[in-house]
Each structure stands twice: as structure tokens, then as C-alpha cells.
């Protein structure tokens, strides 16, 4: 395909912005449009559950680029207007306001939205955390709350529990796993994370399910567990995972299956349409499987690959997955994947000092590196994963 004259990026968060920037950096001189559902200029989400929720940073600090940098991009930003339909054959996108654009290339970067807790929608005091407004609203309620229950023990739930506890609120973290983030960190490091939460006064309810949220006159008052136990709460935070924002694509003709299904070049199942970031489920040739990553660095890395492929590079996207989380005094970083049955070796520092790097191996081959308060050393050990010819990655879970 010859170089396109126009590109429309649907989604104005990290992945959408990075795609636009990468296109320009690689020399694209055509018309560039970014359509965003939120009214804000592109902002960063990882601080929402940490520095913004705690109040350490004012909300404007998370804006990803200044006005001058966005002006230099020479892109039209259409904000506060969610996309509502795509005609894949003509690459025509329509938005809620009636705005419509036909373009040579469409990049889908609509991200994810929180999975709601059935029956809890619309109750005052029940929160999810995805947008800036979500974070500001939750922060406002935490200031006055005595008891908070966080439902969900993944990365987001664990971070929210830590931040809320740091504000002095009594926090209970309810999760199905044996310890928070067990599926992301494996049993050993997740065990250490669980002890960290307990030491800081978070009450952990492990292996527990929430049957329903209880309410009085439209306001949440607690959660009822599968065991029948009732936990009283002024505020309930629901962090039970996310769903890719693809409902607006249902009549597009694209193949959707837990995200926008893409080939190894991040091309969706129609000519001239790509997907990037949280919403993209693509074929990782190094692993030999379909993958969808909800990681901050994946948004920008994949954007580079998508921009290159739009401009004819024709290269597969084969990243070493990476994420980090900051909870209490623990800065945890993970490269690759940490299988529950992996052999774990501490290669630097020590667990007792809460400062170490662990190398994870399956069948003798390095599959992941976990760092605990040792960011630089962790990055250096990442090379072991790159050196393994096919990354030697195993699928999460």
C-alpha cells in the first residue's frame, strides 16, 4: 500500500497520542486527526490511583503534553465526542455529535472501561477508577470516609487500597486470590506484597467473593460476601477488571474477541485499520499466541509499531511486556511474565531488605524479571529475556 494521505486515530489517551507522535516522528506529513471521548487533552492514567488519588499531585500535573507540544504535532484534536460507529469498508468514523470523517487509515485506540459490579451501578458511594473525574470523585469521598472496601485484588485494586490506607482510612481489600496480585506476581512476590499491605494496616480478605453490594436509600452501606458475612462501608471501590471499548464497533464488520483482533502487524481484519493499546489483541510472533496488554508502556511501544506499519515498515510487534506498580514503600517492576510455577532465584539484593531482583525461569529458560525497589538493576537483568531467542515468554496464567 502506498503511503496514506490521512490518518484518523480514535482515542486520545496515551496510545492515541503516541501513535500520532510516532507517525510525525517517522515522517508522516498527511492529515492527522485524533478523536477522543473525554473532553480533556491527553492525560496519564497511572497516577490516578496514586498521586492524584492521594492528593500529592494536582490533576493538571498529569497532562501528557503542553499546548506548544500538541501544536507542534500539527494534528486536529476532536475531544469530548465519543466514536459511535465505523464503516470498515469505507473507513468512515462517526461520533456522538454527528461528526463524521472518511480517511485512508483508521487507528483504534479506544482503550478499556471498568467492569461494573452487577446491581451496584448508580449507587452513591460506589466508585470505579478509570478517568480523571473518577479519581477526583473518589478522592473527595475518601476525605470524609471512615471505612472503605475495595473489591478486586488486581493491580488497580491493590494500588487503591494502598493509597486509601495512606490517607488514614480503614481499608479492607476483598479478593478471590490467595494474596493480592497473585496472578501477576506469582505466589512468592505476591505473598510479600500481601505482608506489606498487612503491615500497613490493610485488612486482607483473601479467597473471598462479594455476593452483592448493600445499600440504604440509594447510598452504599457495605458488601455481603459469599460466606454471608457483611462488611460495613461508607465507600466501596469496584476494581474487578476491565472490558475493551469495542461496543461501538459491533456493526463495523471487524472481528472482535476480547478486543480488536489483529495480526502480528497490529492490523485489524479490514484494509487500512489498525488497533493499539489496551483495546488491541494482536498475534505476538515471539510467544506464538494472541495477546492483549493493559500496560502503560505497551500503549507507547505498540504505537511505534503501528505507526511504522502504517508507513510500510511491515514489522511484527514482539515486545517484552513490562509493568510497574507503587504501593506503600514498594516499587515493583516486572519484565516478561511470571508464571505461578516458575523457578524463582534472587539475583540481587535480598527479600528481607525489601530490595531485590528476582529472575523467573521455566524449564531453565528466563521468562521474567521482578524488581522490588531496585529499578535500575531490574532493567539491567531484563537483557536475559531479550537474549533468550524467542523471549521464552509463557502466557500469563
Amino acid at each position, binding site marked *: 500500500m502506498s503511503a496514506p494521505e490521512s490518518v484518523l486515530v480514535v482515542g486520545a489517551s*496515551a496510545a492515541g497520542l*503516541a501513535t500520532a*507522535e*510516532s507517525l510525525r*516522528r517517522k515522517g508522516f506529513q498527511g492529515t492527522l486527526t485524533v478523536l477522543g471521548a473525554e473532553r480533556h487533552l491527553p492525560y*496519564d492514567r*497511572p497516577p490516578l490511583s496514586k498521586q492524584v488519588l492521594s492528593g500529592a499531585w494536582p490533576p493538571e*500535573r498529569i497532562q*501528557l*503534553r503542553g499546548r506548544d507540544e500538541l501544536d507542534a504535532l500539527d494534528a486536529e484534536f476532536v475531544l469530548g465526542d465519543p466514536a459511535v460507529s465505523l464503516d470498515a469498508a469505507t473507513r468512515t468514523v462517526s461520533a456522538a455529535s454527528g461528526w463524521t470523517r472518511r480517511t485512508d487509515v483508521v487507528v483504534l485506540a479506544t482503550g478499556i472501561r471498568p467492569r461494573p459490579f452487577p446491581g451496584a451501578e448508580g449507587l452513591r458511594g460506589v466508585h470505579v477508577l478509570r478517568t480523571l473525574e473518577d479519581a477526583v470523585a473518589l478522592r473527595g469521598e475518601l476525605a470524609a470516609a471512615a471505612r472503605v472496601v475495595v473489591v478486586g485484588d488486581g493491580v488497580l485494586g491493590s494500588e487503591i487500597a494502598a493509597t486509601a490506607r495512606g490517607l488514614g482510612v480503614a481499608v479492607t481489600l476483598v479478593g478471590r486470590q490467595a494474596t493480592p496480585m497473585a496472578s501477576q506476581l506469582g505466589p512468592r512476590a505476591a505473598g510479600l506484597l500481601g505482608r506489606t499491605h498487612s503491615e500497613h494496616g490493610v485488612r486482607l480478605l483473601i479467597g473471598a467473593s462479594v455476593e452483592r453490594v448493600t445499600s440504604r436509600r440509594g447510598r452504599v452501606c457495605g458488601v455481603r460476601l459469599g460466606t454471608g458475612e457483611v462488611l460495613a462501608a461508607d465507600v466501596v471501590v469496584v476494581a474487578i477488571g476491565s472490558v475493551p471499548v469495542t461496543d461501538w464497533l459491533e456493526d463495523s464488520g471487524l472481528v472482535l474477541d476480547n478486543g480488536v483482533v489483529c495480526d502480528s502487524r497490529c492490523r485489524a481484519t479490514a484494509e487500512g485499520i489498525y488497533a493499539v493499546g489496551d483495546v488491541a489483541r494482536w498475534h505476538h510472533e515471539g510467544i506464538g499466541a494472541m495477546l492483549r496488554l493493559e500496560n*502503560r*508502556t505497551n500503549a*507507547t*511501544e505498540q504505537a*511505534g509499531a503501528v505507526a511504522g506499519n502504517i508507513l510500510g515498515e511491515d514489522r511484527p510487534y514482539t515486545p517484552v511486556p*513490562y509493568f*510497574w506498580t*507503587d504501593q506503600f514503600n514498594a*516499587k515493583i*517492576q516486572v519484565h516478561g511474565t511470571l508464571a505461578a510455577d516458575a523457578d524463582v532465584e534472587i539475583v540481587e539484593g535480598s527479600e528481607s531488605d525489601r530490595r531485590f531482583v528476582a529472575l523467573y525461569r521455566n524449564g531453565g529458560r528466563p521468562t521474567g524479571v521482578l524488581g522490588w*525497589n*531496585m*529499578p*535500575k*538493576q*531490574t*532493567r539491567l537483568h531484563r537483557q536475559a529475556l531479550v537474549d533468550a531467542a524467542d523471549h521464552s515468554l509463557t502466557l500469563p496464567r
Partner: protein
Amino acid sequence: MKITVDEVKCCGAGQCVLIAPEVFDQRDEDGIVILLDAAPAAEQHAAVREAASVCPAAAIHLGEEA
């Protein structure tokens, strides 16, 4: 090109060091960015621009020569 870094925003991912190791490093103790060369030579500019764009904390800012 004139580079500035925001140490408070930096999350220590080290992406900048992977892309432009002659311009960026990380502190041994906490992984926060160290700017090795605030005004790098022209052959580094493409890598520095990529590093600034992919930085997951938007902690690298580029300006023109003062």
C-alpha cells in the same frame, strides 16, 4: 536541542536508557533518571525524541537551544 527531566514524575521504568543510553542513565539507589547530556549532538536527536515520546511518565521535555 535542550533536554530537561522531571525527577519527581520519573517512574524509573528505564525506557529512556534502553533507547538513548548515551544521554540517559538511572540512579543506582532508586532508578530515577540521570541526564548525562542535556545538549546532545545531532546524531542523538532522533533517539532522544523517541525516548521523550515513549517515557511512561512524560518526564522528559525537549526545547530548542537557548
